[in-house]
């Protein structure tokens, strides 16, 4: 190979990677999920509810292992539990769903239950790592179709409530005065987050949903202050990190979720450095 990294080499690497079906599948699944995660995560970060998202994923762990107990696919257990938990958190109003301590206690309990379910269904234990840390290389075509359908449902639901969601997130008092049903919006949003978390967990696992749902949107909000540009950057960044993560994993043999987590963190910290430089530039510009 030598020092020459020309176009030919890069093309070779890519053709080499895509000769395997499981790589095609991984890219498709990660792509679908990354876009949903980036977009839904943007609102999660805007609302300051990232911890609630984290809690939902932990509750999902209990759902996934519980589903194994009764012979269902983990995804449906994840969706069932996170959706129920999201709706309950929303109905208990924002005041409670933003309480870190209450959420912390519930998520710890959920992880405990997940462990209990594993304990009673020992043959399922091999899948525990996949649920916790994801296993995107094991995704099959059926799963891709399911993820695509879930993605459409998630994004359509989000688009339907987007306008009042933004209003209620930024200015709840005014939104209430203008007739926005705050509780319905926050409940519907957490249900959407629950779906996104369930999808995201299929790729990076319940413990690492932050890598796609919080890292990219948080970085996006550092580099751009516009609404649509922020959404676009969040989705694009999540997509880039997911795909690059898989590519990196393919060539290094490191776990995919680690690579995505690494890129997510790098992306966020790189973005942190951006505004300072910009502000300085603005000052210079003014003089």
């Amino acid at each position, binding site marked *: 190979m030598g020092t020459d990294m020309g176009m030919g080499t890069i093309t070779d690497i890519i053709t080499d990677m895509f000769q395997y079906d499981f790589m095609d599948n991984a890219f498709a699944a990660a792509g679908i999920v990354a876009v949903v995660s980036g977009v839904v995560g943007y609102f999660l970060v*805007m609302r*300051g509810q990232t911890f609630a998202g984290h809690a939902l994923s932990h509750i999902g762990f209990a759902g996934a292992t519980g589903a194994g107990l009764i012979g269902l696919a983990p995804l449906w257990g994840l969706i069932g539990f996170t959706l129920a938990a999201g709706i309950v958190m929303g109905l208990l109003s924002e005041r409670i769903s933003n309480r870190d301590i209450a959420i912390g206690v519930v998520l710890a309990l959920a992880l405990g239950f997940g462990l209990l379910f594993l304990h009673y269904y020992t043959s399922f234990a091999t899948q525990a790592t996949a649920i916790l840390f994801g296993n995107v290389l094991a995704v099959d075509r059926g799963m891709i179709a399911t993820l695509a359908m879930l993605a459409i449902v998630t994004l359509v639901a989000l*688009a*339907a*409530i*987007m*306008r*009042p969601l*933004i*209003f*209620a997130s*930024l*200015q*709840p*008092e*005014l*939104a*209430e*005065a*203008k*007739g*926005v049903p705050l509780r319905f919006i926050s409940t519907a949003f957490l249900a959407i987050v629950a779906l996104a978390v369930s999808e995201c967990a299929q790729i990076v696992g319940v413990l690492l949903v932050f890598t796609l749902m919080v890292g990219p949107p948080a970085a996006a*909000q*550092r580099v751009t*202050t*516009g*609404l649509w540009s*922020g959404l676009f950057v969040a989705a694009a960044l999540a997509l880039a990190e997911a795909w690059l993560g898989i590519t990196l994993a393919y060539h290094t043999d490191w776990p995919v979720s680690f690579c995505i987590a690494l890129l997510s963190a790098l992306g966020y910290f790189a973005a942190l450095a951006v505004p300072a430089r910009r*502000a300085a530039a603005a000052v210079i510009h003014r003089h």
Partner: protein
Amino acid sequence: MNVVELDHASITLGARRVLADASFAIRDGEFIGVLGPNGAGKTTLMRAILGLLPPSGGVLRVFGNVPRRGDPGIGYLPQARTVLPDLRMRGLDFIASSLDGERWGMPRLARADRAMIDDTLALVGARDLADRALSDMSGGERQRLLLAQSLMGRPKLLLLDEPLISLDARHQEVAIDVVRKVCRERGITVLFSAHELNQLIGTLDRVLYLGNGRAVLGTVDEVITAPVLSKLYDADIEVVRAGGHIFVLSRGRDVEQVEHSHDHGHGHGHGHDHGHHH
């Protein structure tokens, strides 16, 4: 025409009667200073006018009708302003979120809306805030942004709930001047609640003083008197006038100062200027 009218109206918040059998009428184009101790019901009255809280008795009319939630004729600047101080969103998108924000679907910024936002920002001298992130704005700038937002859609009635809180003395005066100028120009009726009377004396037409379940509406000379305020505070109140300022004292202490320190205890008023004007 009366913009806001209470006819033997009672307003109850939970088990607490905020207003009992109150009757007064606010006329078109008036600038009303809404004063009174904490918990006297300034915010509650505004929420009732917004149609968020029906009166428990009597009649409350806004523009001659029963108040309805989401009335586009009312501009509102709420007191509990949960503007996330580290929100990395530009002023334009922040304001745009309130335009038809109650409608379903995805937001889009029509050219006419964009022009209206620009015009309104210019009106309060805040055009440069459109492209700046909220997290980079000072408290005074954020307040101006919110003021611009409350003027969006050309309301005929403006409810400003403690708009001076969290502003330093200079920005307080600027805010009052802007509100006065815009509202006189456009003939907007204003309910402006505040802790301090003196800053508003040159601006307000009449005072609505709330306290002890009662409401008294009148000129400063009619309302800011020992007998009236003693009833509203349920305490012996002295009114001292000196150098064009009016001090309302309870047992020798300025009630506004007492209110201020009280406010701090509740975590309001970040960066509040304590020693001003006295």
